[in-house]
């Protein structure tokens, strides 16, 4: 039974009910209701509990700025969410709503015990206690505090919903579709501008939705609104509702979050729940209006106490009378209109208590006409009622003295402490604000972006003023876009103009120290707390905010910032601007993580790069590992094999006969041009001038700081053409580095770079039978040792495909790397597999590649080096061209610390017991008996089991390591101290005999 629904009122169909539950109890609302309006229609005000004192609370607002009426909602598994604003969430069929932050029921919350001992919990009390005994903070006090804190419960299952992103370029973005925004959009669109208009509510119209009696251009407000929206549609304006401008970033980049399905009974299959729009606008008009401020008095937080404007919205927009006997407390004329509307709808207004001495004459006349008692120069000294306000104590104020109080019975209190221009987005742009003495408000000052502010956002009041300003600003924006435009301000009758004053907490009687006048409702910050903070030395508003938590609730200070500032500035004894305004920070309203993440979830979190041979590996049961953005085949387990078994088998097969490896991820760069040799000489440590055409060489690349950055085999295909390979992870970085030098340091060099990583598929064949497998498939190149020795490169045909064929080896076996155009990679692989059948060809992955190269002492940049390793440290001095005058990083190699004794050098480590594997990353010490902290002389960089050696072996970077050869060092591990002998890194076939075939 909706006890407070007024027939004929509201902007929706009073027919078809929408069913929902609140704390398990069934309710009916109407299509278009919010949770709050539907509950209020049933006379339910109690909707939440406050953060600290767990005081019973009802809605204060009718919009997204609500601090109190936060609830948990759910629509099935994974679709649970806490802290939903009951005042903004639209009803949908079957919506489950639950109150939060309570133990027991909402009406009897056991944690409300906090409220009884509230004097203990003054501002910053937790900084002053919970320190003894020392170990108790994180073991005892903190867990208790953490359980008491927080609002709703966190979701506990993965969210099945999707979230979308979309980009939009627009000439003019108008944020806020109240009177100013509508007028601006109309003016600009009529001039031919391409306009996007957004509003966070389900319907456009802003304040007009709550003020149907205003007459615009001779039409009732809602008729004018309908006509205006129709015209906007005709003019092609893109209109987005339920769309919040969350943040205003550089150069008119605005993030919009659009809610798409939360209001629907049955969301369409696969429809995104929310969409983040990335808007780049040529001009932006901010028409966000103003936010009504609460008044600060004892007991201003009881359920039933709400903003006057909110009550007016509930009545006119939702057809809900929030109470039968409202009392109004105000310092602004606007609340009178709320009183009139409620009275006209059948409420008995208990009184209008005006803090000011002289309200506007017009509203006084209207009040008298309706027989409403108006008490001017009065204050409120308290309220009564536990779960719903029952009465108000008011008293006259004269000359600063509070007179005798009287009690006024009521069932709701509608308050208005004036209006604050909504400048959040303007503040995101780092636009500056100035304090307006007359309005007691911050107004926009200097703008840092191409934006305009229209209407109440710059302190204008009344529909006539807002519409005229909107039209004017719309024209200004259109002209800035180079369009001809004329302003045509609508004519407004029955306007609701008025003025008001801003107050600190209202004067009171009795012991001010016992009064609890709330400033931040959600965080339970009272005027007293703010004064205490100031007394304790918090003189800047940022300090006050952080010390008291005023303004840090989920309404982001929309209800509390200005009131807090007025009180703090009074306590400090300085004008508000000297105390400062806290910075508004994005987002404008809390926004789901999902909306930010958008499509970038799961497989789409980041792209996965796959080689042309990847499908074969997947089909053949490869285990994969992520390497930078690539996924690479790690090993190919056979039934029952773990990684160690598979790798041992792959290693043995390769050394015994032939193995095949997908090396397509290696970076490849084509270096071409008359100065290619000179360029290579300058970039790489090695000399390149004498490298013959058809020959290849290991290349080492340093950073300008002298440390190893990358390496790879480089083949010379012509006088002016090099095929450069890089590490898998280094490809983009190396190309960028090369381009940097060519373009900015050596622009005179005639040389061009092309990334060919994805153009070539690369297959490595290694093992004594590698030539036998390859030979039948090659045309145009003799593969004999004489014609094609180790470190050769040739262009020929392999398996019918044009190929760049290298004879190189990263395993110490006879080896070839065949590059074919990527589209033929898989066919090449399959041809080689077929040809290799009779040699039991074995596909192997990155792990076997690592083992085989380590057995030869070949380094992996990034594993055996860490960005602090010089060529000499890595035993690669031989790769430095001795006669070179300069190359990238050469000068740094002469720096004192890089030539000092005792640098870490790459050596081999053989554990005393060959069955013992050292951890990669394990630390090496000379003296295992020393106390902690130990002097560490190095660490293990690579460690594997070698099938060829029949034991484990490792590489390590050890201080002065090469001089320690043959000596023992120690590796302390949690399992005990391991003794190991320092060796060279040539573990397998040190003379390289196996390449001589």
């Amino acid at each position: 039974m909706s006890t407070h629904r007024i027939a004929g009122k509201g902007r929706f169909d009073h027919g078809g009910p929408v069913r929902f539950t609140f704390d398990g109890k069934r309710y009916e609302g109407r299509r278009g209701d919010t949770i709050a309006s539907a509950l209020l229609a049933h006379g339910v005000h109690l909707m939440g509990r406050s953060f600290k004192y767990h005081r019973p609370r009802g809605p204060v607002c009718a919009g997204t700025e609500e601090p109190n009426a936060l609830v948990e909602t759910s629509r099935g598994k994974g679709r649970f969410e806490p802290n939903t604003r009951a005042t903004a969430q639209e009803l949908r069929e079957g919506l489950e709503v639950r109150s939060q932050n309570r133990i027991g029921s909402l009406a009897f919350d056991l944690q409300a015990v906090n409220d009884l001992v509230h004097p203990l919990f003054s501002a910053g009390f937790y900084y002053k206690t919970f320190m003894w005994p020392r170990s108790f903070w994180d073991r005892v006090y903190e867990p208790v505090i953490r359980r008491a804190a927080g609002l709703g419960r966190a979701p506990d299952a993965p969210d099945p919903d999707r979230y979308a992103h979309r980009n939009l370029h627009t000439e003019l973005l108008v944020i806020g579709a109240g009177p100013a925004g509508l007028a601006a959009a109309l003016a600009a669109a009529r001039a031919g501008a391409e306009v996007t208009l957004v509003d966070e509510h389900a319907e456009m119209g802003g304040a007009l939705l709550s003020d149907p009696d205003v007459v615009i251009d001779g039409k009732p407000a809602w008729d004018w609104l309908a006509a205006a929206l129709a015209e906007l549609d005709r003019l092609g304006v893109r209109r987005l509702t339920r769309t919040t401008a969350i943040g205003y970033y550089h150069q008119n980049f605005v993030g919009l979050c659009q809610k798409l399905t939360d209001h629907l009974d049955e969301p369409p299959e696969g429809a995104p729940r929310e969409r983040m729009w990335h808007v780049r606008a040529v001009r932006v008009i901010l028409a966000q209006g103003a936010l009504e401020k609460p008044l600060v008095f004892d007991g201003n937080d009881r359920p039933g106490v709400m903003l006057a404007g909110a009550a007016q919205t509930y009545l006119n927009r939702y057809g809900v009378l929030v109470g039968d006997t409202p009392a109004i407390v105000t310092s602004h004329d606007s609340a009178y209109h709320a009183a009139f509307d409620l009275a006209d709808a059948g409420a008995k207004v208990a009184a209008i208590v005006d803090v000011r001495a002289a309200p506007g004459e017009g509203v006084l006349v209207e009040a008298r006409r309706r027989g409403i008692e108006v008490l001017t120069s009065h204050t409120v000294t308290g309220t009564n009622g536990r779960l719903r306000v029952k009465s108000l104590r008011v008293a006259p104020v004269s000359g600063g003295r509070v007179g005798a109080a009287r009690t006024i019975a009521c069932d709701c209190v509608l308050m208005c402490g004036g209006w604050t221009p909504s400048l959040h987005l303007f503040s995101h742009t780092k636009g500056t604000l100035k304090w307006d003495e007359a309005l007691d408000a911050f107004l926009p000052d200097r703008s840092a972006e191409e934006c305009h502010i229209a209407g109440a956002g710059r302190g204008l009041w009344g529909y006539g003023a807002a519409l005229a300003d909107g039209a004017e600003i719309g024209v200004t924006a259109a002209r800035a876009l180079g369009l001809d435009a004329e302003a045509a301000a609508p004519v407004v009758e029955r306007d609701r103009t008025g003025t008001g004053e801003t107050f600190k907490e209202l004067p009171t009687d009795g012991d001010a120290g016992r009064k609890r006048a709330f400033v931040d409702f959600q965080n339970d910050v009272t005027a007293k707390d703010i004064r205490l903070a100031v007394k304790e030395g918090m003189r800047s508003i940022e300090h006050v905010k952080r010390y008291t938590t005023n303004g840090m609730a989920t309404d982001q200070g929309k209800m509390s910032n200005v009131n807090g500032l007025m009180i703090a500035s009074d306590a400090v004894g300085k004008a508000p601007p000297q105390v400062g305004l806290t910075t508004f920070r994005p987002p404008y309203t809390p926004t789901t993580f999902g909306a930010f993440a958008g499509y970038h979830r799961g497989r789409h979190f980041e792209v996965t790069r796959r080689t042309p041979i990847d499908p074969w590996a997947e089909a053949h049961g490869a285990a994969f590992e992520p390497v930078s953005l690539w996924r690479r085949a790690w090993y190919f387990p056979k039934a029952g094999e773990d990684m160690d078994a598979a790798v041992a088998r792959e290693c043995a097969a390769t050394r015994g006969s032939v193995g095949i490896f997908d090396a397509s991820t290696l970076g490849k760069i084509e270096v071409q041009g008359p100065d290619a040799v000179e360029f290579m000489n300058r970039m790489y440590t090695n000399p390149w001038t004498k490298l013959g055409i058809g020959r290849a060489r290991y290349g080492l690349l340093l950073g300008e700081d002298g440390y190893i950055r990358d390496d790879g085999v480089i083949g010379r295909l012509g006088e002016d053409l090099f095929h450069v390979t890089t590490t898998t992870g280094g490809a983009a970085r190396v190309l960028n580095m090369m381009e940097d030098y060519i373009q900015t340091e050596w622009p005179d060099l005639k040389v061009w770079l092309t990334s060919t990583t994805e153009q070539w598929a690369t297959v490595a064949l290694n093992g004594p039978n590698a030539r036998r497998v390859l030979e039948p498939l090659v045309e145009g190149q003799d593969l004999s040792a004489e014609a094609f020795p180790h470190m050769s490169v040739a262009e020929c045909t392999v398996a019918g495909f044009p190929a760049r064929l290298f004879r190189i080896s990263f395993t110490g076996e006879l080896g070839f790397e065949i590059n074919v155009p990527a589209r033929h990679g898989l066919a090449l692989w399959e041809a080689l597999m077929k040809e290799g059948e009779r040699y039991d060809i074995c596909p192997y992955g990155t792990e076997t590649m690592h083992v085989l190269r380590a057995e030869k002492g070949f380094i992996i940049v990034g594993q055996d080096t860490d960005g602090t390793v010089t060529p000499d440290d890595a035993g690669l001095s031989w790769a430095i061209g001795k006669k070179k005058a300069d190359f990238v990083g050469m000068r740094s190699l002469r720096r004192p610390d890089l030539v000092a004794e005792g640098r870490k050098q790459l050596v081999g480590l053989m554990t005393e017991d060959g069955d013992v594997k050292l951890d990669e990353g394990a630390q090496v010490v000379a003296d295992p008996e020393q106390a902690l902290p130990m002097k560490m002389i190095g660490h293990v960089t690579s460690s594997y089991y070698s099938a060829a050696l029949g034991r484990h072996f490792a590489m390590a970077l050890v201080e002065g390591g090469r001089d320690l050869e043959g000596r023992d060092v120690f590796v302390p591990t949690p399992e005990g101290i391991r003794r190991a002998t320092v060796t060279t890194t040539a573990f397998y076939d040190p003379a390289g005999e196996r390449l001589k075939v």
Partner: protein
Amino acid sequence: MLLIHCPYCDETLPEAEFAYAGEAHVDRPADPMALSDDEWAAFLFIRSNPKGVHAERWRHVHGCARFFNAERDTVTDAFVSTYRAGEPRPGTKCSAGAPAGDDMKVAAE
């Protein structure tokens, strides 16, 4: 997301297409081996890091792939100018009041 004018493409495009590449006009010395350790360290590591107009390099990496220079106010992030590699700095005055040339000392050493 900044909007950046590429002086090669002559188009103003979103930051996502560009990669920042550090302070501009820090030229690699012609003969590094002739430098003292201090001079070399200055080239490698010392940066002007001004609060005001900063001469810096960007690469239009997802476009023409060219490196170019820009002057940008580090207080507001607003671009003052962009110009091609090798062109002299337009010499815009810093918002902080210091002469712009100050930022370029390192390069010349």
